[in-house]
Each structure stands twice: as structure tokens, then as C-alpha cells.
């Protein structure tokens, strides 16, 4: 297993901000963490995606952690990996879910009236469209939504003002919601 700090440095100096090797390592760690939680908890518990991402951070970076720039890139990769894991699972559960549609018909109808949350797979497709328009906006949404980072944390790790990050967030948010239509 390569050292995550070295991999992140390599990613920074290269063209891609998220080197495949970093993504692969974070993805594998998140998957194994998710699997161990599932095995440990019988019954109906949910996984906290954000908690898993932060646990993966501790596991991969050890006691010293990373400096701010590396940490920012780590969470960008981890958020993308978490999105992928959730999407994989949602697809795998697709057949099961379709079976439940009949029972949920009334509730789903009610949800439509109340303008409830979109399906994860719809958000995933909207994020792909967002990536085509502005990859930075896609990354920002992923880091907020799948790694649970606050705008304050994002400002700190990217070395930018909160005001500037907040503006980017307003734009990313608007573009994403438009792609969900």
C-alpha cells in the first residue's frame, strides 16, 4: 500500500487533481470500513457516510494527519469515492427497490406533493452534467454532500476566503438543482 501523502503529492504535480491511485486506495478503505460496519451491526442501522469518510482519513493518514492542501485533496477524492460506493449500492438494490414500489406508491405520491428529496441516482446523473459544465462545482458539491465538509472547513483547507467559497457554493448549488429537473 503506497503512502497516501506521497500519492497525494504525485497527484498535485500531475494533471489530474485526483490521481487514480489515491482514489483507489480511499475507495478500498471506505468499502472495507462500510463492510465491517455492516457485519458488526445486525438489524437496521444506517451507515453515516460522513463518519466513514472521516474514519478513512484517520486510518489512512495516521496520527500526524495531513497538511491543509493534502487534506483538501484527500477529502475531494474521498467524497468522490463515497459517492461511487453509494451509487454502486443503490444500483445493486435497484431490483429490491422496484419490488417495494407497489407498497410505497401512496407514500411516493405524497412525497411528490411535498417536494421531497431526489433519488441518489438522479443526483448522480445531475453531478455528471454539472461536471461537464464546471468540474470544480461538481467537486465542491461532492465535498459538501458526501464528505460532509462545511463551507468554513472548505475555506480553510483551500486557503480561500469564506465569502469566495460561499459564492462558488451558491453557483454550484444553483447549477446542480437546474440539472436535476
Amino acid at each position, binding site marked *: 500500500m503506497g503512502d497516501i501523502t506521497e500519492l497525494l503529492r504525485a497527484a498535485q504535480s500531475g494533471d489530474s487533481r485526483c490521481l487514480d491511485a489515491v482514489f483507489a486506495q480511499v475507495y478500498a478503505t471506505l468499502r472495507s470500513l462500510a463492510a465491517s460496519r455492516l457485519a458488526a451491526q445486525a438489524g437496521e442501522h444506517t451507515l453515516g457516510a460522513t463518519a466513514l469518510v472521516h474514519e478513512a482519513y484517520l486510518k489512512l493518514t495516521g496520527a500526524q494527519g495531513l497538511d491543509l492542501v493534502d487534506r483538501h485533496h484527500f477529502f475531494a477524492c474521498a467524497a468522490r469515492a463515497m459517492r461511487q460506493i453509494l451509487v454502486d449500492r443503490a444500483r445493486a438494490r435497484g431490483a429490491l427497490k422496484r419490488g*417495494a414500489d407497489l407498497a410505497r406508491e401512496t407514500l411516493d405520491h405524497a412525497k411528490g406533493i411535498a417536494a421531497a428529496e431526489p433519488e441518489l441516482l438522479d443526483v448522480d446523473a445531475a453531478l455528471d452534467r454539472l461536471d461537464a459544465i464546471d468540474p470544480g462545482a461538481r467537486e465542491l458539491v461532492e465535498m459538501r454532500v458526501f464528505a460532509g465538509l462545511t463551507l468554513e472547513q472548505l475555506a480553510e483547507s483551500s486557503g480561500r476566503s469564506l465569502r469566495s467559497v460561499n459564492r462558488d457554493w451558491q453557483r454550484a448549488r444553483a447549477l446542480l438543482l437546474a440539472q436535476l429537473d
Partner: protein
Amino acid sequence: MDAAERLAWQQADRLFAELIDLDAVQRDERMAAMPMSPEVRHHLLRLLASTQQEHAWLDGEASALGHWLPLATPDKGSMRGRRLGVWEIADELGRGGMAVIYRARRVDGAAEQVVALKLLSIASLSRNGAEQFRRETDILARLAHPHIVG
């Protein structure tokens, strides 16, 4: 998304960035002075409209996404035969991130009745989940049908 479509969104995004901090009147004035194609205008209006909408899953804490997360490996037999109030749980009909739905049978002898019983999962106990459940029950309460139990 083809190149032309991407370009239209990127243009709308740039104009949107100029309008974010303005109030409604200033926005309208500024927009009127901006040259843009009908397509870009349409996109821009959509972007502006989204600033008026609240979306708990996007604007709240990240844990609002809890219902997207998979439940643990289902142990479908675990609830069978268990009694909740006047209902005895039979087989599982379906599950989502928020809840599991079971077939249940009335066992207090009052009437022969089979219903779909929705049990909320841990994630649904969060603030957003509780709110959504309350909305659902409000709406369900307004529905009247011989097959819907009050």
C-alpha cells in the same frame, strides 16, 4: 451534454455570478441590459429560481443524506411474528433508506384486516426524517379509501 448546451450553461453561470448579490429590482435592471440568447436566458432564470428554494438534503447538515445510505444486510425473518399494538408482523414488503414496510395482520379479533405497516429506521429519527414522516401521515390522513386504515 453536447458542446453547445455546455456553453449555454457556462454563460448562464457567469451571468448568474454577476447577479447573486443584487436585490430583485437590481437584478431585473441588470438582466435587461445583458445580451443573451433565449436559451441562456431560460437557464439563467432557472438558476435564479433555485435561490428561492430550500432543499434540506443540500442545505442542511450532510447527515440529511442519511436516507440514501443502505440499511444493513437485511435479516428478513427478524421481525416476523412480532406483535406491535394490535398488529402482528408477517413478511417484508419492501425497504428504503428510511423505513421498512411489512405486511401485518390485525390480531386483536376486532376485525380481519391485513395492512402495510411502515417502520421507521434509525436514520428517519433525525430532524428531517421526522418532518417527512409527519408530512406523509398528514397527507395519508386526508386520504379516504376502504383499503386505507386510519
